[in-house]
């Protein structure tokens, strides 16, 4: 097995020169910290809870903002809890939505207990079966850069599983006042905060 990717570097590669029209919804836990570690942005809607809901927040947002691009970037445990939402998204198929799973095969937040993906549950195959237009397995830098490039011109519902090393970089904790996060996100889109 090849060396797994480092999560912080992977987030940076995906979102390099993200542009003003990319909206990002990370899942609770590590992906929220990874996104915050890149530097704060009002177009990030950090989740500190709502486990299993990240992809659906992304769907509602992508449908409401068809001129923007939406990236949900979450962990395998969070995605497993909302696996039915892949079926829901698979029949809506907004072309401006990407669901990217940082898969390290463990629940990092709670002590590295193995997740279902550790034992072979394949989320890429689930997404494919649910009707996602592009389903990508990302195991190296080149494939990761390709997903980053696809995000820039997103035009089809995309799912990517990024193979991430099971480690915990120092936590970077963003704002956790949900009302504040909501208000600044809407303001960044020109909506009433």
């Amino acid at each position, binding site marked *: 097995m090849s060396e797994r990717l480092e999560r912080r570097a992977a987030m940076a590669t995906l979102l390099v020169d993200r542009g003003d029209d990319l909206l990002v919804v990370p899942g609770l836990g590590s992906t929220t910290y990874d996104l915050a570690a890149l530097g704060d942005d009002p177009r990030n809607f950090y989740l500190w809870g709502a*486990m299993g*809901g*990240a*992809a659906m927040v992304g769907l*509602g947002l992508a*449908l409401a903002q068809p001129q923007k691009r939406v990236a949900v970037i979450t962990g395998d445990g969070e995605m497993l809890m909302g696996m039915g939402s892949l079926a829901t998204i698979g*029949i809506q198929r907004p072309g401006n939505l990407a669901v990217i799973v940082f898969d390290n095969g463990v629940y990092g937040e709670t002590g590295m207990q193995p997740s279902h993906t550790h034992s072979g549950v394949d989320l890429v195959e689930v997404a494919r079966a649910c009707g996602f237009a592009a389903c990508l397995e990302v195991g190296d830098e080149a494939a990761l850069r390709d997903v980053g490039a696809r995000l820039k011109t997103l035009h089809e519902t995309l799912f990517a599983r990024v193979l991430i090393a099971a480690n915990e970089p120092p936590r970077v904790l963003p704002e956790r006042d949900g009302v504040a996060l*909501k208000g600044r996100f809407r303001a960044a889109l020109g909506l009433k905060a």
Partner: protein
Amino acid sequence: MNTQIVDWPDRLFETLKRGGIRQVGYVPDAGHSRLIERCRADADIRDVVLSTEEEGVALAAGAWLGGERAALLMQSSGLGNCVNMLSLARTCRFPLLMLITMRGEWEEFNPWQVPMGSIVEPVLELCEAEIYRVSTAGEVEAAAERALQHVFGDERIGAVILSQQLIGRKVWTK
């Protein structure tokens, strides 16, 4: 089938339209079948069939982040599936309009519907939702209008409860 003329779902639909609802999440439900049909036929409403009701709570949050109003249709049993996800609406004060058809409270044939049906209102109260209970067809429109105003004007959770008395008993022998 119930042969009396039932027009409250159509009036409810028109109220949602006037209220600017653009996304409707639902788990298929007999009590909501006419409303779902109307939403599916409307070019300006995105109907999103859900695999579980809690998805709709997250959908509505995303819709509001992007400037759209959503409504979530469910049966009373579905509220139980939503409880943790309601934290998202409560913590961030996302507007959340729920339209809940009741089971387990009036001429219910199926005892399995009673445990959740019987705790819908206490659960909603614990989750800080405003409750608008409707028992007759004539009350539906006004209740929905008040709920829309409260939910989207004040960014709160509101639930219109459509009682089993309104909906009528389920026919078990076909």
